[in-house]
């Protein structure tokens, strides 16, 4: 019986001594943390995607508290998180804040794509792009193996008919798909703008007509319809997303190959 009592007493005593030491050490070596950092870190999504440019969410919170990054810097959190961070920091969210999403600049599904050769290699866009574009006639468009689909951490991309489709509710514009696409056909655009050029081909119109039913032929009809927004450069229409407040819709209806989508 004595042996139990002795061991309990010794261990208990040791416990008290170490607890006291740890307590003193914690007090002595305490690191001062800005309470704002902790508060901001708590409301961030915690995806650690790196789209803000910081090395993870906590680093973002630290840099926001220091004023190095703007409060709307977290692309994943969007307006909601920006407002919360704003209330902690005592700053208003800027009025020209727009949600951004990834947009795919190709509209050709598997059946639209003209093939020159059968591709039997590694089923990855990056591999097919190196091997003469997987035998596709179009040197600019989507290859359809879904590298973007695989890399999306938010499950926002689905492959429909061999073409990635972005779910605007899930997309956080983190930009991983932009980097993963070997053909660089995905870009981050303002969601509420209402127009995307679903083509990346810089081939002349006559050639595009031969190989793709939904490609941009560089006809400049959109440029004539809404000159503030559209411009044809290198046989390809591009949108000036800084032209806010101009309705891009009239050109969508007029586009002969329907390569401008909402």
């Amino acid at each position, binding site marked *: 019986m004595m042996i139990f009592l002795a061991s309990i007493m010794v261990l208990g005593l040791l416990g008290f001594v170490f607890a006291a030491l740890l307590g003193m050490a914690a007090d002595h070596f305490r690191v001062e943390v800005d309470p704002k950092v902790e508060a901001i870190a708590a409301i961030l999504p915690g995806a650690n995607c790196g789209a803000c440019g910081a090395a993870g969410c906590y680093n973002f919170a630290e840099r926001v508290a220091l004023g190095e990054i703007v409060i709307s810097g977290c692309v994943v959190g969007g307006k909601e998180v920006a407002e919360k961070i704003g209330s902690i920091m005592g700053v208003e969210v800027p009025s020209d804040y727009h949600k951004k999403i990834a947009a795919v600049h190709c509209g050709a599904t598997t059946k639209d794509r003209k093939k*020159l*050769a059968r591709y*039997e*290699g*590694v089923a*990855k866009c*990056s*591999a097919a792009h*190196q*091997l*003469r574009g997987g*035998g596709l006639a179009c*040197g600019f468009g989507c290859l359809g193996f879904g590298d973007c689909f695989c890399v999306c951490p938010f499950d926002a991309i689905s492959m429909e008919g061999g073409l990635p489709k972005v779910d605007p509710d899930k997309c956080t514009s983190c930009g991983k798909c932009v980097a993963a696409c070997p053909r660089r056909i995905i870009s981050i655009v303002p969601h509420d703008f209402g127009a995307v050029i679903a083509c990346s081909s810089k081939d002349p119109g006559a050639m595009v007509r031969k190989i793709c039913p939904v490609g941009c032929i560089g006809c400049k009809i959109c440029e004539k319809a809404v000159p503030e927004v559209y411009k044809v450069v290198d046989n390809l229409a591009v949108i000036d997303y800084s032209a806010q407040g101009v309705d891009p819709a009239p050109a969508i209806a007029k586009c002969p190959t329907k390569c401008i989508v909402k």
Partner: protein
Amino acid sequence: MKSFSRGIHPQDSKERSAAKPIKEALSPRKVILPLQQNLGCPCEPLVKVGDEVSEGEKIADSAAFVSAPIHAPISGRVTEIKYYPNACDYDIPSIVIEATDAVDKVTRPGSRWTLEELAPEQIRKIIREAGLVGLGGAAFPTHVKLAVPKGKTVDTVVVNGCECEPFITSDHRVMVEKAAAIILGARALAKAVGAEKIVVGIESNKLDAYKAVNFEGLKVRGGVSVVQVKTKYPQGGEKMLIKALLDREVPSGGLPSDVGAVVCNVATAAAAAEAVTHGLPLTKRVVTVTGPGIKEPQNLLVKIGTPFAELIEQCGGTVGNVVKLIMGGPMMGIAVPTAQVPVVKATSAILLLTDQEVKVEPEGNCIRCGRCVRSCPIGLTPNFLAEYAKTGNWQGAYDYNVIDCIECGCCGFVCPSRIPLVQYFKLAKNAVRELKLAEKKAVCR
């Protein structure tokens, strides 16, 4: 018999065309010349649309060091300078020349010389101006090889007569028919780099070629040795051949000049002889048109820029259901999507395979059998590299020396799971290069 360790023994299939003498192909009416026909930098055109050019005239050149000029293979008029499909998939324009009915005249970039009166510097210049590149298939500009970096000495010129790729016999026929030119060309290259020794390595399945080259080699008193090497793939890889003939090992990331050797192909040596003694630029080469899908396999002397389709026609057309057209051999060749692509300096063979040979099996999982490791002539571990490439772990691939892969295809050949290993490595090599470049930029900023 001399050789290297590991490697594989594919069926050589050379009997179709090995005994066929080189035949001059019909001169094409139209040639397509991509502005990049070599490793390194593309050329800039020196002519414009509508210009008259004569055979042998220089039509494109580059100021960059790692590049070789391009010469007109036929006399005619430049009709177009625009993008045409080419076998190497370079996204660059091609010069198109259409033959005119005027009498052919040949422009020589230089006059005739004898080897004795030329200084090493002059030989390098002649070879550059002749647009010479490695004719074995990689098309590395020859004059770049000959410019030995400071602090290194080259004592041996290794002439590569292995032709280890199955089906191809173009080098074989060049050795049988132009043995004297090979030896002369090799002597010119040796003089250019200041090497005393010339070693010609020929695989043991080409006995007639060995006899012919050895006969010519013996005429030169001393300095030239012709050696038979084991018939094994990839015996013709320069690192493997140096190991077999000189028992020296090229270090990781190094060049043959690091171990005192320069390697050139037999066809390159023969072309060098023509450039030096006759002042002729590289405008034609021997191409083996072969494979089970061709009616009459042949070795043709072809003007560069001739579309594949014309050569296939001259060989009696196709037989069976041809499903694959390859530039080069079955191991390292490049599949091309259309027969309209032109012959370039790197085209050693045109191979047509039918549905009987091409079987596509789905890629399986790695079963850790280690056959790829046992076959890799460089001594890499393809099983790990493939895993890193699949998962995008480029740093891991770099640590396992993916950059040293010579893309010979031995690992993929023996893989029982049919994993397209070389394609993964090509992907990894490009990604690793980009990664290292980005790291360098981040450090140097």
